[in-house]
C-alpha cells in the first residue's frame, strides 16, 4: 500500500480547539470594533452623526472619514477606507464603531446616523454595455486579448461548428472564518493578528498605508480558517483595526460580520462567455474563439481571466481569446479559487461536450484527439502533460465504456441518470521565497519560513520537504510558519505555495547539510543556521509551459417531477507532479471538487439593480454544499515525474479540483435530460425549462 502521508502537524490543536485564529488573541484592554457599511449604491457622505452611538454605554469612539488616521495610497484602493466622503458602492465602509465590548460596538454601529447625497448608479452587467473595454491585462498579468491565425476564416469553413454562450453569476468565497484582525500599536510598532493568506503582503501593504517602516510591523497568521483567494490580498478589516488601535490607543479586535463580506472581500465576477468551436468531421479543432464579458468596480480593475484555458488546453491553430470589462458601481471583484480557470473551463468544457455531440465523437475521445504537446498560445512545450492518461484512467475507474451516448437513455423510476466528463487544468506558479534551516548540537532541526497554512496542509508539507532534503526523519524537524517576522515568502495563493516555499526550504536545508559536511559532520555548540532565497533561481521566462491537468467524471440523477439534480458520483484523476503528502493532497482535490459541486448546482449571487447590493449575502441565502449534497467524491492521481518544475517535482493542487467540476456535472445533466443548461447554477427551474 502506498504511503498514506502524515497527519497534519497542527491537527491535535485543531481537534481540541486550542489552535488560535486571528480573533482569538486578546491583549489586555482590547476594544471591539464594528463597521458601518454604506446604505446607498453610489454617492457621497454628507454627514455622520455619532451622537447617539457615543452615548451607548461602553462607547469608545466612532471613526469616520473626518477623524480617521490618514493613509497613504498603495496599489489597492479598496483599502483606502474612511479617507474621503465618496461612496463607490453599497457596503463600502463609511464609519467604524469602537467599544469596550462586542455587544456595545454592534449597538453603536446601529446607532450611527449617516446622511448621504445619493447619485445615479449602474450595477448591471450586460453584454452590450456601452462602457465595455478591452483591458490591456487581465488577472495574473495575462494579455486581455490574443489572436492567432485566422479565426473567422477557419470557423466559417469548418464542417462542424458550435456557437454557445454560457453565463455565470457572482460567486462568494465564504471561508468559514470571516476576516478578522486583532491589532495593537506599542511604541510605534504595530502587531496585527490577521486572518490572511500571506502575512508579508499584509505587512508591506500596512507599511505603505501607514507610512511606517515594515520592520516595525509584525503580522501573524498562525492559523487561518480558509481563504480561497479572498484573504490573498489585505482586506479592509486589517486596515480598520490598525487605524482604530492607533486612534484609541488600545488593542482593537475587528471580526467582520458574515453578511458584510460580499461587499468588501472580493467576489468572482459574473461572466458572459461566448464559445465558438470549428472542427473537422473527426472533431479536431481548427478554430476556437473564447470571448469573455465581465464587470469590475470603479475602485479597482480586476478582470477574471476566463479565456485563459482556451489558450492552453487544445489544438487550436486559429484562435481568438478576448476579455471585455465594464467598471460598474459594484463591490470590487477579486480572486476566488482558480480565478479564470474555474469559470473559463466551465464554458470551454461544456462547449467541448456540445462539439462531441455535434461531431458524433465520444467526449473522452474528442479531448484525446485535441490533445497537444505544446501550449498552443505560447508554442512552448509542456514540461509534462498527462491529460490523456487522466482521461483514460478516469474512464476506466468510472466505467465510462458502458455509456450510451444518447441523452435520456437511462432512467430509474422518476429519476433520469446521466454521466458527463470534463478536463481540469491549472498552471504552475513559482514565486521567490526565503527560508532558514537550523540544526542544534543534538541533531534537532528547525525550519523557519513565512508560509501560511489556510487548511492546505502547508505546515506539514514544509516539514516533509525539509526532512527529505535534510535526509532525516520527520519527527526531528520543527517548523515555524505564519508570521512576517520569519523569512519572507510567497502567500498561499495561485496554488504556488508548496512549490515556492518548498524550493526555498529545500535550498536552505541542502545548504545546511553542506555546512555540516564542511565541518566533518559535527555541529558546534549553538548549532548552525543556513538561509536561502530563491529570487535568482526561479526563471522569469521558463522555456517550458508548466501546468497540472486532470479529468473529472460525474454521474447525476435528475428528478423529473422536481427538476432536482443530485450528484451521485464524482471522480477525478489528476496529474499534478509528485504528490508530497497523499493524505492532505486528497483532501485538497476533493475539497476543490466539492466547491465545484456548489458552483454547478447551488452557488450564485444576484446583483439587485435598484439597491446595488448582492441579494444573497449570508449562508442561509447563498447556498454552499453541505453534508447531504456530497457523496461519492473520489480523487486519484497518476504518478508524474517532472524534473523541470522545482527540486521537489511538485505542481500546485489547491485549485485544480474546482476546475472542470461544474462542466462535468452540467454535461451529465444534458446527458440525463437532453436539456443543455448554459447558466450556472443548474437550478431545478432551468432543468424543467
Amino acid at each position, binding site marked *: 500500500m502506498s504511503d498514506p502521508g502524515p*497527519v497534519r502537524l497542527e491537527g491535535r490543536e*485543531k481537534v481540541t480547539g486550542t489552535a488560535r485564529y486571528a480573533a482569538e488573541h486578546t491583549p489586555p484592554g482590547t476594544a471591539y470594533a464594528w463597521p458601518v457599511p454604506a446604505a446607498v449604491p453610489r454617492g457621497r457622505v454628507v454627514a455622520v452623526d455619532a451622537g447617539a452611538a457615543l452615548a451607548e454605554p461602553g462607547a469608545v469612539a466612532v471613526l469616520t472619514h473626518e477623524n480617521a488616521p490618514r493613509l497613504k495610497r498603495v496599489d489597492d484602493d479598496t483599502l483606502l477606507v474612511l479617507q474621503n466622503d465618496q461612496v463607490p458602492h453599497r457596503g463600502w465602509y463609511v464609519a467604524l464603531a469602537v467599544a469596550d465590548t462586542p455587544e456595545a460596538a454592534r449597538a453603536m454601529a446601529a446607532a450611527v446616523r449617516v446622511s448621504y447625497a445619493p447619485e445615479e448608479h449602474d450595477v448591471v452587467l450586460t453584454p452590450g454595455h456601452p462602457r465595455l473595454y478591452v483591458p490591456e491585462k487581465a488577472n495574473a498579468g495575462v494579455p486581455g486579448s490574443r489572436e492567432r491565425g485566422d479565426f473567422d476564416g477557419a470557423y466559417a469553413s469548418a464542417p462542424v461548428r458550435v456557437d454557445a454562450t454560457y453565463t455565470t453569476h457572482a460567486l462568494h468565497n465564504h471561508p468559514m472564518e470571516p476576516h478578522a484582525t486583532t491589532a495593537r500599536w506599542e511604541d510605534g510598532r504595530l502587531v496585527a493578528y490577521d486572518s490572511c493568506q500571506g502575512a508579508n503582503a499584509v505587512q508591506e501593504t500596512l507599511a505603505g498605508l501607514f507610512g511606517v517602516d515594515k520592520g516595525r510591523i509584525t503580522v501573524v497568521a498562525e492559523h487561518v480558517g480558509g481563504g*480561497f483567494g479572498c484573504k490573498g490580498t489585505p482586506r479592509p478589516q486589517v486596515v480598520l483595526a490598525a487605524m482604530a488601535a492607533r486612534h484609541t490607543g488600545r488593542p482593537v479586535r475587528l471580526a467582520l460580520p458574515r453578511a458584510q463580506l460580499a461587499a468588501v472581500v472580493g467576489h468572482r465576477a459574473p461572466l458572459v462567455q461566448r464559445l465558438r468551436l470549428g472542427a473537422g468531421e473527426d472533431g479536431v479543432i481548427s478554430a476556437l474563439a473564447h470571448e469573455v464579458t465581465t464587470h469590475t468596480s470603479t475602485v479597482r480593475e480586476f478582470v477574471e481571466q476566463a479565456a485563459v484555458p482556451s489558450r492552453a488546453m487544445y489544438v487550436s491553430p486559429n484562435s481568438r481569446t478576448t476579455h471585455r470589462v465594464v467598471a460598474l458601481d459594484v463591490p470590487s471583484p477579486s480572486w476566488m479559487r482558480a480565478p479564470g480557470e474555474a469559470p473559463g473551463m466551465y464554458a470551454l468544457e461544456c462547449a467541448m461536450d456540445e462539439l462531441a455531440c455535434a461531431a458524433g465523437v465520444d467526449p473522452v475521445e474528442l479531448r484525446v484527439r485535441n490533445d497537444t504537446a505544446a501550449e498552443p498560445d505560447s508554442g512552448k512545450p509542456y514540461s509534462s502533460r498527462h491529460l490523456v492518461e487522466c482521461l483514460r484512467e478516469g474512464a476506466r475507474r468510472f466505467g465510462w465504456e458502458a455509456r450510451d451516448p444518447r441523452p435520456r437513455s437511462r432512467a430509474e423510476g422518476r429519476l433520469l441518470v446521466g454521466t458527463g466528463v470534463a478536463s481540469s487544468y491549472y498552471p504552475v506558479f513559482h514565486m521567490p521565497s526565503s527560508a532558514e534551516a537550523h540544526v542544534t548540537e543534538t541533531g534537532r532541526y528547525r525550519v523557519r519560513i513565512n508560509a501560511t497554512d489556510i*487548511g492546505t496542509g502547508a505546515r506539514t508539507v514544509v516539514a516533509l520537504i525539509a526532512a527529505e532534503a535534510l535526509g532525516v526523519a520527520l519527527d526531528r524537524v520543527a517548523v515555524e510558519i505564519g508570521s512576517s517576522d520569519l523569512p519572507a515568502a510567497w502567500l498561499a495563493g495561485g496554488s504556488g505555495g508548496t512549490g515556492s516555499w518548498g524550493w526555498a526550504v529545500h535550498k536552505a536545508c541542502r545548504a545546511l547539510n553542506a555546512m555540516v559536511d564542511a565541518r566533518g559532520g559535527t555541529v558546534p555548540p549553538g548549532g548552525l543556521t543556513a538561509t536561502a532565497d530563491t529570487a535568482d533561481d526561479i526563471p522569469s521566462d521558463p522555456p517550458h509551459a508548466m501546468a497540472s491537468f486532470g479529468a473529472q467524471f460525474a454521474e447525476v440523477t435528475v428528478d423529473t417531477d422536481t427538476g432536482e439534480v443530485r450528484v451521485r458520483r464524482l471522480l477525478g484523476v489528476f496529474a499534478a507532479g509528485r504528490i508530497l503528502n497523499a493524505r492532505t493532497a486528497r483532501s485538497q482535490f476533493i475539497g476543490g471538487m466539492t466547491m465545484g459541486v456548489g458552483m454547478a448546482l447551488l452557488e450564485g449571487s444576484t446583483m439587485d439593480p435598484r439597491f446595488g447590493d448582492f441579494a444573497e449575502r449570508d449562508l442561509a441565502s447563498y447556498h454552499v454544499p453541505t453534508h447531504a449534497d456530497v457523496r461519492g467524491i473520489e480523487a486519484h492521481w497518476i504518478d508524474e515525474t517532472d524534473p523541470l518544475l522545482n527540486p521537489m517535482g511538485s505542481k500546485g493542487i489547491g485549485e485544480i479540483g474546482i476546475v472542470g467540476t461544474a462542466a462535468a456535472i452540467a454535461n451529465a445533466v444534458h446527458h440525463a435530460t437532453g436539456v443543455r443548461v448554459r447558466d450556472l447554477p443548474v437550478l431545478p427551474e432551468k432543468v424543467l425549462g
Partner: protein
Amino acid sequence: MEPPQTSSAVTLRVNGVRHRLRDLDHRTTVLDALREHLGLTGAKKGCDHAQCGACTVLVDGRRANSCLLLAVAYDGAEVTTVEGLADGDALHPLQEAFLVRDGFQCGYCTPGQLCSAVGMIAEAGGGAPSVVTPPGTAAAGAPVPLSPEEIRERMSGNLCRCGAYGNIVAAVEDVTR
C-alpha cells in the same frame, strides 16, 4: 421608574467547571460568553446567525448553535465545548478519527463538527429519527442505525467550506460502526 436591567449574574457549568459571570450583558450569547469571557475559543463564530454550525456546543447534553442562545437565558446550564471532549491527554474517539481521516482542513468548522457529531450520535442512539430514516425501520425509542446517508443528513447543519465532508462522514463511521 428604575432603568431596565441590562445585565445579570449568570452561572454556566462548562466542561465540568462552574463559572460565575457576575455582571453579564443580556445581549451576550453563550458563544461570546465562552469566547470573550471564559477564554474558551474552541467554539467558532462563522456566521453569528446559526447558519453554519461552527459554534455548535452541547447544552445540557443536546447540540445547539451557541451563537443564537442568550447566555442570561441559560443560567445554570451544563455546557460542553470541544475543549471538554478529550479525557486529559486522551483524545475523544471522534477527535482521533478526524485526525486519521483528515476530517478537516482549515479547522475552523471542526469544533462544531465534533460537538455536532457527539450530539448526533446520542440523538440517533436515543431513537430520534431523521428525514431519511425509512418509516418503520426501528421501534419507537430504539437506536437508529447510522448509515452514511443518516450521518450526512443529520450533520447537514454544519458547513465545511474546505469540503471535508466525505472524510468527516468516514470519521464518524469509524466511531459508530
